[in-house]
């Protein structure tokens, strides 16, 4: 007899959501967490950064209140309190997850799990936080151990806790650095650049590829580059960093751009060059678990090559996003429970919460063409959208990519104020396999910035109404 039906290893967003769904399905469930409930997302990622970025946004707005007919004297901030608020938000949500575990009668085992071969699914030997160890067995074990910041010690890409940071250190600094180099222009790098720049740091972002936010549509990258530059962020793209080192007063970065060597000096460097999956020291090699480029290899249901062992979320591969982990977790446990899951490919949206925000779902124009689609592309700028004008949020635009032959919405890309709150409209459309006509026929409320989504669809078929 197993102790549980399901053990989930890792209580990040993927893990705890999987556990809740398992419990809803009537499965006796335990979850093992070595650090904090909520994982990186709640404690060191999605949530605390959003708290910081809200501070940055409000502070930035205070800087140009006159546009709204307002004025304020003596704009200032208390950096300690800014960070404190962010930590408070994280703490509140962690407590929320603890409540949810209790509500769903999920046993939380605090400690570090190691898996060992057993008759059925591997058993978990947990080195308990409180001391001692406990062995637990289950019919199904789901790995949701997530990932951590990728480091390359050989060229100095490694946090030192003082001047070289990863996201983790960047979330709890003692003070805002005067100058900052961010290595990597993905969502994490750009969000920190945006936050620190808003609070006055001199920020330079270094990107190895030829454009920032390289997973986004090229036009979005270009617009983002411009918008961030306008706010004073400097960029080095197509830049190869050869060395990051501590100097007397801070850090120095040796890089090469277009064949020209350059050395940047700053107080602090943030390394944001991607993630490494957490697969170490868990006994996975003793199980003969198959990996794929460092990530656990799974099929589309999260099934691994080890009987009874599943993997979801960051540890199972890109994109490394909390909502992707939750989606996979729910799918995996429903599959285990014998659900016939709908044969749908739900596209996974991506969001960057800088000012301005960037959000996208589906294929970029270039990717759609590379995949052999003949495309119709629509665009609509916020600067002619009534609500955006009224709100004074003119930056940005919406871009749609349709298959010219079938009318399928292949992708949508947005940059602008709160676009991260709008992208799900397109996500629903794509998941339900909407065509351009369905988007034409949908009524978008007026006045909202979402009308630009309607217009961008109309524009792809050369029939926009307001431009």
């Amino acid at each position, binding site marked *: 007899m197993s102790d549980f039906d399901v053990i989930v290893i890792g209580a990040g967003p993927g893990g705890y959501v999987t556990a809740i769904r398992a419990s*809803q*399905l*009537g*499965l006796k469930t335990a979850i093992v967490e070595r650090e904090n409930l909520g994982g990186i997302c709640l404690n060191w990622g999605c949530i605390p950064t959003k708290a910081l970025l809200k501070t940055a946004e409000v502070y930035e707005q205070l800087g140009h209140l006159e546009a709204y007919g307002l004025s304020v004297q003596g704009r200032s901030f208390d950096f300690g309190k800014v960070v404190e608020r962010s930590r408070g938000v994280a703490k509140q949500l962690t407590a929320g997850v603890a409540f949810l575990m209790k509500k769903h009668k999920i046993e939380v085992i605090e400690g570090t799990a190691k898996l060992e071969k057993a008759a059925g699914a591997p058993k978990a030997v947990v080195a308990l936080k409180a001391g001692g160890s406990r062995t637990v067995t289950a019919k199904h074990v789901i790995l949701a151990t997530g990932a951590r910041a990728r480091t390359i010690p050989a060229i100095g890409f490694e946090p030192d806790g003082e001047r070289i940071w990863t996201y983790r250190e960047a979330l709890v600094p003692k003070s805002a650095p005067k100058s900052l180099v961010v290595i990597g222009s993905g969502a994490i790098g750009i969000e920190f650049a945006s936050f620190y720049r808003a609070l006055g740091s001199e920020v330079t972002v270094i990107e190895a590829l030829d454009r920032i936010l390289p997973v986004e549509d090229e036009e979005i990258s270009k617009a983002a580059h411009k918008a961030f530059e306008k706010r004073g962020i400097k960029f080095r793209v197509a830049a190869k960093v050869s060395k990051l080192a501590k100097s007397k007063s801070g850090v120095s970065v040796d890089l090469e751009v277009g064949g020209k060597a350059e050395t940047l000096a700053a107080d602090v460097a943030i390394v944001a060059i991607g993630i490494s999956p957490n697969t170490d020291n868990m006994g996975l090699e003793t199980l003969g678990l198959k990996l794929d480029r460092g990530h656990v290899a799974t099929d589309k249901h999260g099934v691994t090559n080890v009987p009874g062992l599943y993997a979801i979320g960051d540890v199972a591969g890109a994109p490394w996003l909390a909502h992707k982990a939750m989606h996979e977790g729910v799918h995996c446990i429903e599959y285990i*429970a*014998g*659900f*016939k899951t*709908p*044969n*749908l*490919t739900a596209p996974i949206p991506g969001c960057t919460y800088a000012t301005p925000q960037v959000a996208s779902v589906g294929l970029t124009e270039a990717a759609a063409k590379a995949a052999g689609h003949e495309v119709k592309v629509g665009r609509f700028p916020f600067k002619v959208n009534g609500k955006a004008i009224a709100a004074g949020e003119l930056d940005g635009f919406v871009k749609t990519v349709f298959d010219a*032959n*079938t*009318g*399928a919405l292949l992708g949508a890309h947005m940059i602008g104020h709160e676009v991260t709150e709008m992208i799900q409209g397109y996500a629903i459309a794509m998941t*339900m*396999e*909407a*065509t351009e*006509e*369905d988007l034409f026929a949908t009524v978008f409320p007026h006045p909202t910035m979402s009308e630009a989504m309607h217009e961008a669809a109309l524009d792809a078929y050369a029939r926009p109404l307001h431009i």
Partner: protein
Amino acid sequence: MSIEILMPALSPTMEEGSLAKWHVKPGDTVKAGDVIAEIETDKATMEVEAVDEGVVEAILVDAGTEGVKVNTPIARLAGEGEAPAPAPKAEAPKAEAKPEPTPEAAKAAPPPAAPSQAAGETGATTKAPAPATLNGSGDRIFASPLAKRLAQAAGLDLAALKGSGPHGRIVKADVDAARGKAPAEAPSFPGAAPASAPARAPQSLAQMGIPDGSYDLVPLDGMRKTIARRMTDSFRDIPHFPLTIDLEIDGLLAARSKINAMLEKDGVKVSVNDLVMKAVAVALKRVPEANASYSPEGLAMHHHADIAMAVAIDGGLITPIIRKADTKGLAKIAIEAKDLAARARDRKLKPEEFQGGTFSVSNLGMMGIKSFASIINEPQGCIMSVGAGEQRPVVKNGELAIATVMTVTLTCDHRVVDGAIGARFLQVFKSLIEDPLTMIV
């Protein structure tokens, strides 16, 4: 305790049907065996009998409702001695279902019913002129907008696809799989051949020069839609050819008189058509290649001759089947044929009595038709069209003579029955008809 009356399955394959008529109303007392309702599929009407005693508490599905899924509660009986509770209108048939199934329940739950398979379907794949979102019984087919458009472009009939999306909705992956484009997760579409050309869009009568108001429009009922769809699909998609042969039937008629004289005391009367069916059964046994169906997986060589006979009925036609006719004597065939035809005219056939079959016989001889070529009844390989037996001049030993001659035409599905096979079958058939004694051997 209330007892729920569920939508019955009229055949093992039935997934849904129409609730044609209620014979009871709330407050009526019923005994086990009482007819309480009539259920209609596209070809048959069946009576539903009460299994339990009680008072009808509520009618949950109104008469005239189409597409009622099998096992849906259709009415509720209050058990004996109970006062019937008024039908609470808020109570949906499944109000008691828990929002989340347990894993066991989830496992046990049947896969979402395919909303597309008409009850009268024989499983043959079809292509429709347009991506109609109604199936043969007029029920809505759930498909994503993109799936609808892709199906139209490919000339695929949505009704022939099985949906793998939420609640069985047809999604892009299903259409792709049907077009043989992408690996289907669960290959559910037997005929994955892409359509050679998109079918033409139907034109309105007005577009074709018949003004509105110059005719009365008879609505399409389930049977008409099924006939239209199946015949269109068959005629368009099956490479068919006719083979015609003349048979002298004087010997057959003489034999029939003798047989009927013998059987008179049993009240059995054998028709020429019964003799034709008997001969077909024997001929199929001797030429088994003609008793076959084409399928993409291979040629199905049938073990028995299940002979479908076309019966004209009000509003259409239906083809009840003499099962294993090759194992049945002439008298038995005659009795069965008479019973099936009578019940077909009353629309009282069970679906399993008219679905399937391996060979069809259609006879318009009694109406004086000399010869005609029928349309293949999918998935059968052949259909025989029987004309009138009439006196015609024939040449015998170089001299003109008079004989009773009947012309039959065999329409063959060339994918499975080639010309030589069809011809061989007709030769055997002719020898049996012209020398009926050989049928006994």
